[in-house]
């Protein structure tokens, strides 16, 4: 596959600027870059979902310009998306048939699926319904769907973001087998270690431009990260400040989900000490949001299941917890932690109203004080914005994240709960946020960091617990733990993943 001078502009941004790259047959080619670097746009162009403004592509030395995905598939180009497009109620075979242009009979297809899955070491039962499969197994269905069409180029968008470390290993083996058969793989990720492990070549995008191609085997994760962000990366310094005083205690916390697809939190037990950072690792959708909500007070639990400095607060509503020094920053910054169409001042009021005293005694809003509060956050956490009157959606992801985390940090919480603090944030902003969390812990606050990013947890957490299907593993000291160890912790918490591990 030869790509020359692809350009694609969107209102206000140039998503791809004059990008050229070559993918050799039989190689695993990594496409690296921060969020918004233009990776997704480029692969969508290759897969025929978007038309470029200018530029050409050649596939196997022939002119290649797919106008829709089915045209790309007929050339042998297939793609596995980060978000699955599967129907829960249908069986594996039926789902695969839906994605085919001329599906064979289900019975024949099932046999094909079985042979393909055996060939590539991807065990799956074609008769099982997709709703009963784990995220890793669902991804297998997506991959088999591609493999069955004998792809010459397979595009994978962040495939390991939904996998445990052990599931990821299985995936890598499959990719190796596919590569040996002569197929090319375009592999999108921002996890640098795994790219060093499996990729032959890496192309790095920054701000929509190709800033260089390298051999990941010869580079370190740090040098590649610096190519991605275009400057020297400062890694936060971790110095443990754990004390022996318990700040937050969770005992026998059990909470049924409020929505149909929520996760049931089952018998959670843990403590966080003053000055300690407790990491909660796990693949998303395993109860992280429910845990955040129960801790923030958005959903209430039994009185004695949560104790803050010995005081039971399980049934205390969300507005009362900041007064006791407990604050929360939820995962979704637009729409949960902040309101897209409200100004930063109004968004500052969202959690600052009780904690920062922005309300008068008869519930009138002190707007001038709120404005000062917002300006303080912008100032202290280096939020790049035209001013406090800008709406939240006008900010970039990283800057808004700095704002919503900063909003809680500036209130000097005694206990802080953060969910995915650096999700979708560029490396520099992520480093700043992690450093700010470490600084807060040094001041004696107890912090719970819920994250999918295991590297992040290893970097800043003193102790780690894994969450899976609403249950928690036993906590372990982070020091000396490897990513594999954490993978085992995750697998050990639920039966479902216990089976995974035997694969």
């Amino acid at each position, binding site marked *: 596959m030869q790509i020359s001078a692809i350009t694609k502009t969107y209102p*206000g941004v140039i998503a791809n600027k004059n990008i050229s790259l070559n993918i050799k047959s039989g190689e695993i080619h990594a496409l690296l870059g921060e969020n918004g670097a233009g990776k997704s746009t480029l692969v969508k162009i290759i897969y025929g979902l978007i038309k*470029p403004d200018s530029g050409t592509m050649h596939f196997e030395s022939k002119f290649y310009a797919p106008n829709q995905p089915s045209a790309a598939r007929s050339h042998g180009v297939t793609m596995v998306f980060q978000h699955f497009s599967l129907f829960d109620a249908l069986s594996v075979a039926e789902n695969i048939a839906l994605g085919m242009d001329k599906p064979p009979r289900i019975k024949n297809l099932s046999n094909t699926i079985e042979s393909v899955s055996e060939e590539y070491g991807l065990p799956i039962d074609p008769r099982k319904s997709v709703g009963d499969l784990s995220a890793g197994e669902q991804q297998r269905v997506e991959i088999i769907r591609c493999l069955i069409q004998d792809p010459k180029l397979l595009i994978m968008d962040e495939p390991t973001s939904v996998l445990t470390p052990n599931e990821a290993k299985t995936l890598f083996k499959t990719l190796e087998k596919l590569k040996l058969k002569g197929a090319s793989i375009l592999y999108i990720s921002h996890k640098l270690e795994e790219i060093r492990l499996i990729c032959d070549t890496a192309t790095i995008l920054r701000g929509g431009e190709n800033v260089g191609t390298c051999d990941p085997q010869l580079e370190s994760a740090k040098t590649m990260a610096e190519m991605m962000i275009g400057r020297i990366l400062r890694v936060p310094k971790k110095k443990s400040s754990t004390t022996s005083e318990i700040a937050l205690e969770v005992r026998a916390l059990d909470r049924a989900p409020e929505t149909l697809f929520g996760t049931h939190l089952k018998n959670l037990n843990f403590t966080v000490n003053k000055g300690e950072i407790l990491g909660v690792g796990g693949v998303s959708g395993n109860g992280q949001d429910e845990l955040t909500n129960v801790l*923030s007070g958005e959903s209430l639990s039994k009185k004695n299941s949560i104790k803050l400095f010995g005081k039971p607060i399980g049934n205390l509503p969300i507005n009362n917890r900041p007064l006791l020094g407990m604050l929360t920053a*939820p995962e*979704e910054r637009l729409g*949960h*932690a902040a309101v897209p169409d*409200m100004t930063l001042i109004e968004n500052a009021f969202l959690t600052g*109203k009780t904690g920062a005293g922005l309300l008068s005694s008869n519930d*009138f809003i002190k707007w001038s004080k709120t404005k000062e509060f917002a300006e303080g956050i912008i100032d202290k956490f280096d939020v790049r914005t035209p001013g406090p009157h800008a709406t939240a959606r006008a900010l970039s992801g990283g800057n808004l994240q700095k704002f919503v985390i900063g909003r809680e940090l500036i209130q000097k919480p005694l206990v802080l709960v953060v969910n995915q603090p650096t999700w979708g944030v560029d490396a520099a902003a992520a480093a700043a946020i992690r450093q700010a969390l470490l600084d807060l812990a040094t001041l004696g606050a107890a912090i719970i960091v819920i994250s999918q990013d295991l590297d992040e947890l290893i970097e800043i957490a003193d102790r780690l617990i894994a969450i899976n299907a609403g249950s928690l593993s036993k906590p372990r000291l982070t020091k000396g733990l490897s990513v594999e160890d954490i993978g085992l912790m995750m697998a050990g918490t639920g039966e479902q993943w216990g089976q995974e591990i035997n694969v």
Partner: protein
Amino acid sequence: MFKLEKRLQPSQKWSSATPFLAVAGTMVFGGIMFFLLGIDPYTAIRIIFWDPLFNPMYADYARPQILIKAGPLILIAIGLAIGFKANVWNIGAEGQYIIGAIFGAGVGLAFYPNDAWYIFPLMVVAGAFGGFIWAMIPALLKIKFNTNEILVSLMLVYVAEKILVSMSLGLLRNPEGGGFPGSRNLQYYDAAANRELITGTGLHWGVLFASGLICLMYIMLNKHLLGYQIKISGQSQKATRFSGTNPSILVAICFGISGGLAGLAGLFEVSGPSGQISIDFNVGYGFTAIIVAFLGRLNPIGILLAGLLMALTYIGGELAQFILGLPAAAIQAFQGMLLFFLLAGDIFTNYKIKLTKKGGTT
């Protein structure tokens, strides 16, 4: 070719300019419509917009009528706007208006012919309560069973209309009315009448109430926690909960306020300009108020202006029917255009138009 591009921030300029552009657009296209109907567009538009206010032949009658019509429209629209801001869609203000009138008139008539001072205040309370209770039906059904408040509140309008008919024919029928449907006329019952406060202006208690409420609503929406909660719940459910607002209570508050105000409007109408509960008591204020609320950008000052403008087109429209023989449907189409142009103009508040080169890639 051109395409729409979303603005990073809604444009303030467009937001305040749209109502004026909408009025201008309505005049132009309304004029074309009148022309096609064989009527001189200039005369028609002059009669609708100018004569009710400034033509000495009609102004004495028309000016007070504008306030009489604008009063209930504004009163109802303010309540609705609070709900609409919070994503709570009370479409049944017409029903709450009817029930408020029945409650208020019922209390007044129960005292007949007593002439104590407290009768009218009591009727005001009863009117608001009637609207409130009627609005609580869709509110509680939504909170308890998550029913669609648009459907339920709308359907309850038709129930209220049936109750109105039953009241005019039965319970509230004037015993001295010779068997005709309709209650006693409250205008002839001093203790219960809502009369013009200053002769020849059309100003009655309801208009006064509406003006006061505009100030109250402005303060509540901009300075008070409740206003913040209303705004936030109109934008994001998750953020609403995160801000510590109970969505169910907010639904009840929004329905309570809008229902209560619609009920008040009904009471002021039945005890004032209309005078009696009759089969055809309601004339659609509850529905027109929806247009007023949006025309006024859900903003108190905007609603004041929109209410007056809407009342003007009503009176002017009647005048045009009377003088030029314009069909009533043409007037309704004219009013509809106003909302149409307003909503169309809203596009420019949130989007800007970008020209793209012809023949280039799309």
